[in-house]
């Protein structure tokens, strides 16, 4: 296989990591909503933790994107 084509395929595969980020963000927001529905008075206090969890989960997926970009542009 030509190197250029292999690079493209590899970058595409690396971007699959973002699927995991999607699942993670869904779980975080879903569970926050469940918890907030059960106990609305405690919801406001946990909002910073929600944002923190969202950012941490999103970042793990974006590492995959960085790998894709490194494959495309750095090599």
């Amino acid at each position: 296989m030509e190197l250029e084509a292999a690079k493209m395929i590899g970058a595409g595969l690396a971007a699959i990591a973002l699927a995991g980020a999607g699942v993670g963000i869904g779980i975080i927001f879903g569970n926050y909503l469940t918890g907030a529905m059960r106990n609305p008075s405690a919801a406001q206090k946990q909002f910073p933790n929600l944002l923190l969890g969202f950012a941490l989960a999103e970042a793990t997926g974006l590492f995959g994107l960085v790998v894709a970009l490194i494959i495309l542009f750095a090599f």
Partner: protein
Amino acid sequence: MNKMSLNPMHQFEVYKIGPEININGINLSFTNASLFMAISATLIILLLFLGTKKKLLVPSKIQLVTEMSYTFVAKMINDTAGSSAKSFFPFIFTLFMFILFCNMVGMLPYSFTVTSHIIVTFILASIVFVGVTIIGFAKHGIKYLELFVPKGVPLVLLPLIVIIEVISYLSRPVSLSVRLFANMMAGHTMLKVFGGFVISLGLLGGWLPLGFSVALTGLEILVAFLQAYVFAILTCIYLNDALNLHH
């Protein structure tokens, strides 16, 4: 149509403004990145200066924004790192405001996002990492290494846990910088890709990606704030580790 302007990566290009300055082979020219860093810093100074000039009991709008940003950061430090971290307020406030303003200035059309370059975020994260390590060793001495030995772990697992803890500690600056960089770069690339769709689909089909573009801009403004917040709060958490060992 200019072919270059359709490339979504074109916006991240750094070019020099004005004369080239070379000192001992190191290129120190004034670039668009330095320009937008200076603009962000000037905006922060302007906001804080105008906000605290007239100290009214019933605050004006700009004074309100200044007070809100102050209490926001102060509360964040107090909640996550405890009252002993209060002396680090100036550093974390500066960090938060700088990242926030760089992100927000980057959201303006035709501007440059400083934080979408890994070297900028990596330097910021390295300052936090080195600073926190120095604070930890200065406060606890050699006992700071206890950070790598969690309490209540079975002795059999301990060697493995210590190795994992050391790796996770050393990966802090990488994850901290890559998080901010990747979020900003991915978001801006996505905006430009959708902007490209608007042009290529033309007057007939371009309305759908245009709507997406507007929605994504809203999302990106949220992300711009969120990433500044996360950077600051993670700094607070690391500081908490260094100041209050095992609490």
